[in-house]
């Protein structure tokens, strides 16, 4: 467990979070940046590093990956620090008005200001709409990810889903589980023909049960999962006994833990005051795609603007007695920290 102390903790290492380091750095505020992904750049690095972007002022065209590389160079003089591959789970406001953040790997970050530049949010498993599903989460029979397949050795397992991961795990667990059932709403697996063929033959040979055009609609059990209800298209529901139910419906961007921090939200976005992009909690700001306000445009360049206004407000928040003076980089150059 490591501990970091800084002026500003920026959640999200996308283009807007990185530019916030620059704007804060001009005002000599130190930044620590946390991102759930293992590399900086957010969606630009993870999803479309080779796609050109045409609306960055001064760049007729720039590849997303190049933009991030340039931004890292631009903030290097400010020596930002990073915690990557960890998600911020908890936020606590301390008595003196500063904050304590804790990540998924128990890294502790103490800071005076929190800037949420979380973009789409973090990617989490998509959960099917089944009543009581949450009752069996956390070791009671319902899992959304397979961390260690050995865990399911000689157990009864029901998988649901039609994507690559459902097929791949079905093939793997067919040998491991005592009894394996794959439930898929459709009749075909369009994504991966080889895996689909393998699953079909495993089912024919009796190594697993393949239930097409079927849906898991209910989960049952006293404190621990015992059975699930299956409804095949156009026929009657029935129950099968199982130890585990693992819905594998891919990942979906979610706000994640920050939903529980007391921030005012609207349609999965954080409501901010456009004077300085502050949230309803003093000392917490939200910039870029994750915020919302009348007239909001989800553009990188709008996020940059928001970062600049946020930084001057954060400065006044951290140093209420100092007067804020706008300094131009052309006049002063880029200061270092």
């Amino acid at each position, binding site marked *: 467990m490591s501990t970091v102390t800084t002026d500003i903790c920026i959640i999200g290492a996308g283009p807007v979070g990185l530019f916030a380091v620059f704007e804060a750095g001009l005002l000599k505020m130190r930044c620590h940046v946390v991102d759930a992904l293992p590399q900086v750049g957010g969606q630009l690095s993870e*999803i479309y590093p080779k796609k050109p972007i045409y609306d960055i002022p001064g760049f007729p065209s720039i590849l997303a990956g190049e933009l991030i590389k340039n931004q890292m160079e631009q903030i290097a003089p400010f020596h930002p620090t990073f915690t990557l591959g960890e998600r911020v789970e908890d936020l606590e406001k301390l008595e003196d008005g500063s904050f304590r953040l804790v990540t998924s790997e128990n890294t502790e970050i103490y800071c005076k200001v929190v800037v949420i530049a979380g973009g789409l949010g973090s990617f989490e498993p*998509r959960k099917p709409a089944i009543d009581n599903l949450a009752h069996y989460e956390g070791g009671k029979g319902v899992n959304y990810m397979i961390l260690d397949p050995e865990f399911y050795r000689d157990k009864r397992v029901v998988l*649901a889903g039609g*994507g*690559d991961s459902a097929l791949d795990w079905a093939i793997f667990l067919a040998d491991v589980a005592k009894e394996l059932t794959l439930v898929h*709403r459709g009749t075909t697996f369009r*994504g991966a023909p080889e895996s689909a063929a393998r699953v079909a033959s495993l089912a024919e040979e009796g190594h697993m049960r393949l239930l097409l055009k079927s849906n898991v609609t209910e989960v049952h059990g006293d404190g621990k999962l015992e059975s699930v209800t299956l409804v095949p298209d156009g026929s009657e529901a029935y129950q099968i006994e199982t130890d585990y139910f693992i*819905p594998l419906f891919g990942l*979906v961007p979610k706000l994640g833990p920050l939903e529980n921090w007391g921030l005012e939200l609207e349609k999965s976005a954080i409501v901010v005051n456009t004077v300085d992009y502050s949230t309803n909690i003093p000392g917490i700001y939200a910039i870029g795609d994750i915020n919302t306000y009348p007239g909001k445009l989800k553009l990188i360049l709008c996020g940059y603007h928001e970062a600049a206004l946020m930084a001057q407000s954060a400065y006044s928040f951290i140093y209420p007695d100092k007067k804020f003076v706008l300094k131009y980089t052309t006049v002063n150059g880029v200061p270092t920290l």
Partner: protein
Amino acid sequence: MQEDITVYVENAAGERVAVPVPTDMGLSLMEALKANEFDILATCGGMALCATCHVELVEAPELPEPSDDELYMLENLPNLRDGSRLSCQIKITPELDGTVLRLMSDH
């Protein structure tokens, strides 16, 4: 300037709401639905990443096949239907005139 086409959004009660859509703005179906203030999030902005613009095409012309990215998302959806598509991946063209769809996002 080309004329608008009309697509119809069918609600749970089976009623169809006519939505006029311009064909000369290079819109996707998702953008057209959002512009008409239908309740879809379109979190990812059109990159076939979040499936919050999932629609079921009830009546539609033959469309280009979904891309691998779109197929991957569709296969993962618990509420997948035969006519399921991500509306962000459908370009508005004059041929779409008269298309009927249902909104399938489950937020």
